[in-house]
């Protein structure tokens, strides 16, 4: 059943190197101190090895044993904790590298370095082994004089032969090595999805988001349920309530790939964010079509729509790919070829990669959009030719800037699901981990992570997630194991997962409706989503994904999207209803061909719609953008009272884009750059940062306080899930990264926009425990229904999922009955 049979391996590697082979009935096995995955074989072992630690790991050296299996290079520290045989299998331990992440193997011997390829032969005994990884880590192992030479040489050969420079086909065998065993398949199919985030896979997920944003006037349409309208769009689309499905169906043809305008998010001041592909021009516009198209485009705002063109000012995928490859070359600087850029040319070379320029232009565009939305009561439609790269980028950046929920770990995960995974960003092609389509390769998502990092580094206290989390996500992209990144759209993911039980997938009975033709082999291992962090990161490391004492999201209830206190908005309402403007290069215009059906060539529009679009700019719009430019001079903007003033939680986090304010994500790109550590000494390895110590103390007090309160007050017993969270924090604080946060104002934290009624007996707040809360027990019992879906499915799910503090009157249809 294993992907690579042991016979194959035996043929490939001499028999004596096969140190072990797993037995089929053990879940995982301890081989020489290494906890193997089911089916994992240790191919080679070297003792007395030291691993160089990065600044983040505390610097210095760690001694232990090095292993190579057919899935990873593992390093087991000498004094590490004993592996727990009953624990769930974990793909990678803290010091491991998956073979698929390795890009280059270099050995350092006496006075020489050598790049090792599968065919190389060594003429010296390496003293040092350097692994250059795709995720820009550089991992360095030092062999001791006491390490037997044979082990050193064999280890080097084994890694060189096994790491498989990615090529078509090699990914599958890697996946099989990791996940292919019966036990792993079983294990994965019993994994439950993280219910604290929104997966945007079912229609109720979308309804939940509409509810969360207080977006009325919109509905979830199922016209694309079988991907018949558009293959790359998700199954569920949010469209204006007043547009019927039958009308909707006619509009798909008017857009590239059928990607019609869809709702993404509503700003608390009432503006809606939409995204769409470019118009199909060679199509006849019937009168009814025009009416529908306008309705879809204007959404719920009757007066004003701004189309934001994402082509011109933003980098193309090819630009991004080139910039990123330059950045990699610059930051990794290969010791085997010593081509690293001289230090005195570092800054200009960094500039000439254009990577920072591209983050700036994305952030600038997103800032413009955020400022438009702040104006209130207009529709902003992002338009990109294919609507699958920069739309993802800009729409998600806007939401990170404007919505505090998306700055929490679970919120951010939901955002990535919504705007990238489900929206059809072509992860599979852009990452190109199969090396079968170099033309399409472009790390658009990595550029996005960098943009988010820039925001984080300028406003660290406004994020609940940390840069550790961003880093973990960054590294996971390079590991070809996750369904999240191994498909181009929801349809592809559905097709794949239909072959493997129902792991991670909610069951609505739709699987049967899919075309049974399947290109993927049923024996492929089931792939987990990246969000199942426990597969990759230990509890301690996951705890560092969030701040020790997280910030409080705003507590004001959302007034149905009408939190309109902005004086600027008033000016905008004066415009003629139905005005459409194009935002391009920072100015507004109204070109005649903006909407093809309104252009002169299409006569119908003019006849039926008397009013001609105003060709003048709306002064209010310009003002909105000007406000943004002025925020770089904070005193000119009355609403921003500086960092010490009261924070309006909905004021967007507008980044400073001046040269000196844009940073390089050193913790990511310069990790383990060897020269950087030449003189490093551990300073804080054993000392938690004082902020962490204090945060820990505060957490303990809070813990104590809540224990005392719960023990004395029956009313508060519903808050029981809270202490759980506290426990996890105690662990995490011992060695946390950075942390910054404004003080929480209350104990609950993840409820984004609605205040939990203090005595609510509803499900506990979503964010309370990243650790599985106690009510999971009930989730366990419902697992079967979950997997094999029947009518009771919805019930069991509603218990697992968190609905944002339902004030009962406003629950979306169909769920209100379940929670009561």
């Amino acid at each position, binding site marked *: 059943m294993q992907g690579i049979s042991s016979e194959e391996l035996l043929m490939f590697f001499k028999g004596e190197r096969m140190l072990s082979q797993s037995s089929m009935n053990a879940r995982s096995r301890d081989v020489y101190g290494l906890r193997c995955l089911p089916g994992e074989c240790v191919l080679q072992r070297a003792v007395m090895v030291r691993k160089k630690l990065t600044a983040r790991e505390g610097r210095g050296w760690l001694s232990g044993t090095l292993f190579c299996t057919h899935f990873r290079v593992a390093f087991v520290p000498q004094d590490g904790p004993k592996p727990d045989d009953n624990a769930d299998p974990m793909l990678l331990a803290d010091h491991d590298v998956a073979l698929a992440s390795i890009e280059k193997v270099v050995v350092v011997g006496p006075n020489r370095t050598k790049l090792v390829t599968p065919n190389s032969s060594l003429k010296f005994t390496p003293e040092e082994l350097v692994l250059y990884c795709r995720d820009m880590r550089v991992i360095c192992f030092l062999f001791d004089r006491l390490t037997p030479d044979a082990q050193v040489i064999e280890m080097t050969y084994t890694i060189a032969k096994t790491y498989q420079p990615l090529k078509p086909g090699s990914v599958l065998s890697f996946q099989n090595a990791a996940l292919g065993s019966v036990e792993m398949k079983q294990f994965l199919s019993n994994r439950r999805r993280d219910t604290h985030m929104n997966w945007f896979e079912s229609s109720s997920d979308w309804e939940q988001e509409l509810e969360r944003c207080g977006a009325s006037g919109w509905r979830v349409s199922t016209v694309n349920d079988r991907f018949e309208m558009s293959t790359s769009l998700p199954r569920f689309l949010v469209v204006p309530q007043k547009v019927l499905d039958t009308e909707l169906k006619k509009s798909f043809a008017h857009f590239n790939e059928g990607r019609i305008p869809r709702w993404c998010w509503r700003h608390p001041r009432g503006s809606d964010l939409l995204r769409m592909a470019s118009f199909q021009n060679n199509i006849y516009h019937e009168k009814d079509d025009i009416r529908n198209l306008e309705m879809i485009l204007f959404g719920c705002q009757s007066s004003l729509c701004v189309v934001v063109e994402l082509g011109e000012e933003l980098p193309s995928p090819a630009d991004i790919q080139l910039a990123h490859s330059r950045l990699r070359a610059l930051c990794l600087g290969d010791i085997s070829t010593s081509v690293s850029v001289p230090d005195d040319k570092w800054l200009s070379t960094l500039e000439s990669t254009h990577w920072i320029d591209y983050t700036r232009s994305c952030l600038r565009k997103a800032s413009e959009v955020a400022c438009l939305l702040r104006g209130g009561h207009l529709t902003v439609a992002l338009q990109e030719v294919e609507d699958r790269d920069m739309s993802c980028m800009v729409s998600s950046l806007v939401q990170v800037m404007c919505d505090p929920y998306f700055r929490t770990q679970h919120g951010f995960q939901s955002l990535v699901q919504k705007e990238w995974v489900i929206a059809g960003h072509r992860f599979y092609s852009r990452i190109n981990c199969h090396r079968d389509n170099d033309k399409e390769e472009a790390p658009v998502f990595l550029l996005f992570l960098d943009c988010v990092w820039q925001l984080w580094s*300028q406003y660290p206290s406004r994020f609940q997630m940390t840069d550790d989390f961003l880093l973990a996500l960054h590294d996971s992209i390079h590991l070809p194991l996750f369904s999240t990144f191994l498909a181009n759209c929801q349809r592809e993911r559905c097709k794949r997962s239909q072959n493997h039980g129902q792991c991670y997938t909610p069951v609505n009975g739709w699987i049967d409706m899919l075309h049974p033709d399947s290109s993927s082999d049923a024996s492929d291992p089931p792939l987990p989503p990246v969000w199942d962090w426990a597969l990759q990161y230990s509890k301690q490391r996951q705890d560092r994904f969030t701040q020790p004492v997280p910030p409080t999201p705003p507590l004001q209830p959302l007034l149905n999207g009408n939190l309109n206190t902005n004086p600027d908005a008033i000016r905008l309402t004066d415009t003629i209803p139905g005005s459409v403007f194009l935002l391009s290069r920072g100015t507004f215009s109204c070109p005649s061909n903006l909407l093809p059906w309104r252009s002169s060539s299409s006569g119908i529009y003019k006849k039926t719609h008397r009013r001609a679009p105003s060709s003048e700019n709306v002064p209010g719009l310009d003002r909105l953008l000007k406000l943004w430019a002025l925020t770089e*001079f904070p005193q000119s903007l009355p609403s921003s009272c500086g960092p010490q003033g009261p924070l309006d939680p909905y004021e967007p986090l507008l980044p400073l884009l001046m*040269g000196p304010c844009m940073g390089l994500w050193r913790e990511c790109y*310069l990790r383990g750059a060897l020269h950087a550590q030449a003189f490093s000494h551990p300073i804080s390895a054993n000392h938690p940062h*004082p*902020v962490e110590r204090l945060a820990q103390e505060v957490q303990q007090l809070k813990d104590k306080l809540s224990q005392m309160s719960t023990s004395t007050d029956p009313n508060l017993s519903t808050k029981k899930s809270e202490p759980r969270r506290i426990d996890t924090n105690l662990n995490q604080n011992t060695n946390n990264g950075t942390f910054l946060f404004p003080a929480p104002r209350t104990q609950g934290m993840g409820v984004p926009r609605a205040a939990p009624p203090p005595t609510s007996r509803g499900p506990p707040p979503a964010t309370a425990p990243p650790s599985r809360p106690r009510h999971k027990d009930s989730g366990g019992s419902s697992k079967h229904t979950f997997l094999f879906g029947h009518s009771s499915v919805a019930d069991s799910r509603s218990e697992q999922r968190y609905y944002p503090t339902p004030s009962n009157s406003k629950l979306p249809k169909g769920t209100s009955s379940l929670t009561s």
Partner: protein
Amino acid sequence: MASPVSMPNSNALDAHIPTTPRDIKDMELLSDVCLLAGEDRIIDKDIIYICPFNGAVKGKVLITNYRLYFKSSDPDVSVTLDVPLGAISRVEKMGGASSRGENSYGLDITCKDMRNLRFALKQEGHSRRDIFEILFRYAFPLSHGMQLFAYLTQEKHEENGWSVYKPIEEFRRQGLPNNKWRITFINKGYDLCDTYPTVLAVPYKSKEEDLKRVAAFRSRARIPVLSWIHRENQAVIVRCSQPLVGMSGKRNKDDERYLDLIREANDTPKLTIYDARPNVNAVANKATGGGYEGDEYQNAELIFLDIQNIHVMRESLKKLKDIVYPNVEDSHWLSSLESTHWLEHIKLVLSGAIQVADKVTSGNSVVVHCSDGWDRTAQLTSLAMLMLDSHYRTLRGFQVLIEKEWISFGHKFASRIGHGDKNHADQDRSPIFVQFIDCVWQMTKQFPTAFEFNERLLLTILDHLYSCRFGTFLYNCESARDQHEVRLKTVSLWSLVNSKIDMYLNPFYTPESGRVLYPVASMRHLELWVTYYIRWNPRIRQQQQSPVEQRYKELLALRDEYLKKLEELQLSDSPSSHLANSSTPNTSSSTASTPPQQYTRLHTPF
């Protein structure tokens, strides 16, 4: 809150400028300036400040014998300027009687602290002449036979900063004298070397006559003396000036023997001599009688550290100013930054100091010199000592370090800064000390928990490097300071600092003695000190708030609140009724209302 141009770090200047309602009458505009004791108003006038960020701003200017103060009268634009006259490097008239353009007639002021100020005045009357002459006199008092403000101020502080550094005590702290090193008072009347301090540590075996003979062979008699000794391995850092080798390649047996005594003191097999200069500069110095130690020095190796001279540094910082003030060069920021070479110079200084520190850690004694041993040498020894000795990373220890390696050993502050001197083009001026403070800042960035002091201290030091309010940085050497009775007649900067210690403490300081700090001296990891060099740009302000520090304050407030609640809980007898009200729902309001006053307690150990 604060006006856009007066930066948050203007509190580093210790000026208390109360905020005023916007519609204040013109007359009262300047009445709220809080003057220092001994500070006198000279003149005030209506003027237009041509702000590079907000355009022309009408207001009033006040000139005292210490500062130039401007406040806008326009209620829409609130601009305040508070510039110590000492920070002014140059005052020029701009435009003539025939100038036509709007606001083209006025004054152009160049400052030493990375900014320029332009004022426009009415052409009628003699308003410009008056103000120009007053500024010129009071900004450059020494050029006009007047006294520096440090001699006029009457301010009093609880602490006396002049007692911070006592050479003998500092030597004793290092474990000196011992059986290898002795303290000599040979320079008591500055007879041996007029730019050295009176108390020196020299090898035990050297005789006073030896010292005199060595002095004859060292530039300006700055003989090799001990700066720092490693407690465990007894390796030392010795500083001096270049040997007077000259074109003919003179030798001096006494000097050679003397260096060998230094080597012998801890049985270092080979004494390492670090010449801070680039090799070519050292060779060129032979033409003027200087040079470097040649092969005749047995058991010694010579290493050049390639650090450029004061002129190169001055031009580099000038270029940096060009790209950050008033507007930040945006389109090619990184390559513009690179072309100033400022960070590269920082890197060379730091990596030189790292080499020194590393050598000493491994047990080898080192000698450090440049040409005269008062610029690059001071940078290298003080930075190496900062890396080696955690005492210098404390607030008071850092003051000692500056007093010792910079002030007492004769870094020519008066010449490098040009206190009270109108000659702005003086070739002796150079930002050597600024560069040192920048290096310290780089280290605090890389080791955020290793320093007891915070960034505000560094900014304060640099502000008062120019301000002439304190005696600390006045004059070139100890002998001149004695002559002008600086310690008697002026206040020390450390008096101000040590009287308000809380302002300058790093809340995250984690004392760790005996750890050597090696910063990463690579362009990949050095950063421009934006909050100093670009602090006048209002856009930068937003980032000045340290989120970590703020976070810390908030946590402290939260801790106190929780402690209080716990206490209440433990006291309360009727738990059910009490708790239902207090615990959850009220948390938010009470947290918000708890003022972060506990900040002052933040150095309580926990």
